């Protein structure tokens, strides 16, 4: 048994190296003082980061992406919260099928979503712009948001809500004072994950964005120019750090959600 344990450990470590090695190239080459991405390294430099400061198209794309990510994440979290609340609190006709339907984007290849939405926009004769990407991303993120909020609402003890109503609070007050604070770690998790997904999403944005590039669409266009390679690596390094921070925050709030669960179970037992 001990020996097999060791073999497994070797596989896991090998896998982690395979998983992380490519990403480590980003910081290595973005600080490398050379126009080509190859070994041996030629020296330390921050020139590629400085170059990013003067790229106006990049700043524009970043602004577009932030606008899209913030709007679609907020919209998706509102929709996801509504679905999750309905799903965890009430029993009603057509519940299973309608909720499954809302979760469908999880199992559709993104290219299909992009093509579908593009077809409908063209048929309606609507212009493609940032708002069409917002709609596409909201559609994509809502299922993730729903799943996160379902687990947040599942951790909520229904008797607290009933107690609050019995003690004379209106249902709006109950929502604001009792429910909202209790599910807030879930809300924050949903916002963070939605933001990361939207910021990184390429295909739907590529299909729906029209003339305004988002950050991934801008990065995609940079791939064609070998001279832009090092500064793209520098941009990648920055994005890597930003998503690491966001995902770590997500993990932190997810654990807090579990702690809430732990405490409410503890109260029950007393």
């Amino acid at each position, binding site marked *: 048994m001990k020996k097999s344990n060791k073999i497994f450990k070797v596989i896991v470590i090998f896998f982690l190296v395979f998983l992380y090695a490519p990403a480590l190239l980003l910081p290595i080459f973005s600080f490398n003082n050379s126009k080509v991405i190859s070994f041996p390294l030629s020296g330390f430099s921050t020139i590629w980061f400085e170059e990013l400061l003067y790229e106006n198209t990049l700043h524009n794309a970043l602004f577009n992406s932030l606008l899209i990510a913030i709007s679609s994440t907020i919209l998706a979290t509102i929709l996801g919260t509504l*679905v999750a609340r*309905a799903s965890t609190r009430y029993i009603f006709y057509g519940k299973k099928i309608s909720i499954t339907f809302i979760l469908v984007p999880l199992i559709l*290849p993104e290219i299909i979503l992009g*093509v579908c939405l593009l077809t409908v926009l063209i048929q309606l004769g609507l212009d493609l712009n940032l708002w069409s990407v917002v709609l*596409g991303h909201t559609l994509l993120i809502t299922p993730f948001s729903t799943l996160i909020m379902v687990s947040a609402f599942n951790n909520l003890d229904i008797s607290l809500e009933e107690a609050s109503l019995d003690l004379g609070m209106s249902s709006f007050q109950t929502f604001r004072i009792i429910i909202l604070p209790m599910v807030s770690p879930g809300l924050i998790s949903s916002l963070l994950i939605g933001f*990361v997904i939207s910021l*990184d999403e390429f295909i739907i944005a590529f299909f729906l964005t029209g003339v305004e590039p988002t950050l991934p669409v801008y990065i995609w266009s940079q791939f064609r120019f070998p001279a832009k390679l090092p500064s793209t690596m520098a941009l990648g390094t920055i994005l890597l750090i930003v998503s690491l921070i966001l995902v770590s925050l997500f993990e932190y709030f997810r654990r807090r959600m579990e702690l809430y669960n732990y405490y409410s179970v503890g109260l029950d037992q007393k």
Partner: protein
Amino acid sequence: MYFSEHNKKGWRLLGVPFIFAIFLLAVPIATMTTLSFWTQDYLTLIKTITLDNYKQAWFQPVFQTLFARSLIISLTVTFITILFAFPIAYYISFYGGKRKALWLFLITIPFWTSYLLRMFLWKVILGYNGVLNSFFEWLGVITEPLTFLLYNSNAVVLALVHGWAPFAILPIFVSLEKIDRSLLEASNDLGDNNLSQFFRIILPLSMPGVIGAVLIIFIPCIGDYITPKLVGGPEGLMIANMIQVQFSKANNAPLAAALSVTSLLIVGIISLLFVFLNRKYLRNY
């Protein structure tokens, strides 16, 4: 009375998201399906219903090759990924001890970094003047850069395995965690060795997780656009690339729609097949 109250409140909450999904999911899928039965003559749509697009999509060798390649690549990626993911999920679940959450976190982090950049990095690694070639030359292992690394189906498979492996581990891990450890003790007491225990208890009981992982990997892989475009070269292009070309450069949206509907059918059929296999498999135990 109680039920109708629930009905009203439930639908009051679900109404807006449901209508949103109708307009952004059901209507677009219906529109795309309709479009796939029309034809296009330069810029004008001819709205007579015909199966011409499907005839092309299903019987022209170009498209057949692309569908077959997409299928083979996705199935290969799925198979390799599961082969990788299973021992890792197993290790974390059975030997992870107190650090299970940390292990899982370490494994899922890369999934949340930019997919686009991760796939692009494989181009940088495998390319003619890339990281791997220059590294080997620097070491003196090779004198000429290796050309078989990039721009073929293998490169696509490698990059996709790297991209999706983290996601395969989670569902397998969850199903392994659910296995009642006393079953394992019982099987040991009754004379199973580790190998027979694995095949008779652990593998069958973790099947739902494996099927989950298969679907999670297979579906996005078969529709992937980025990876084949970046590292596939002409020999490694997949169906999504063709859909995009038909939509933009070839300006044949109806054909693109027919290709999309066909992909959707393939995804649907294969997913159902796996779900069905899972049920059948579980019934036997």
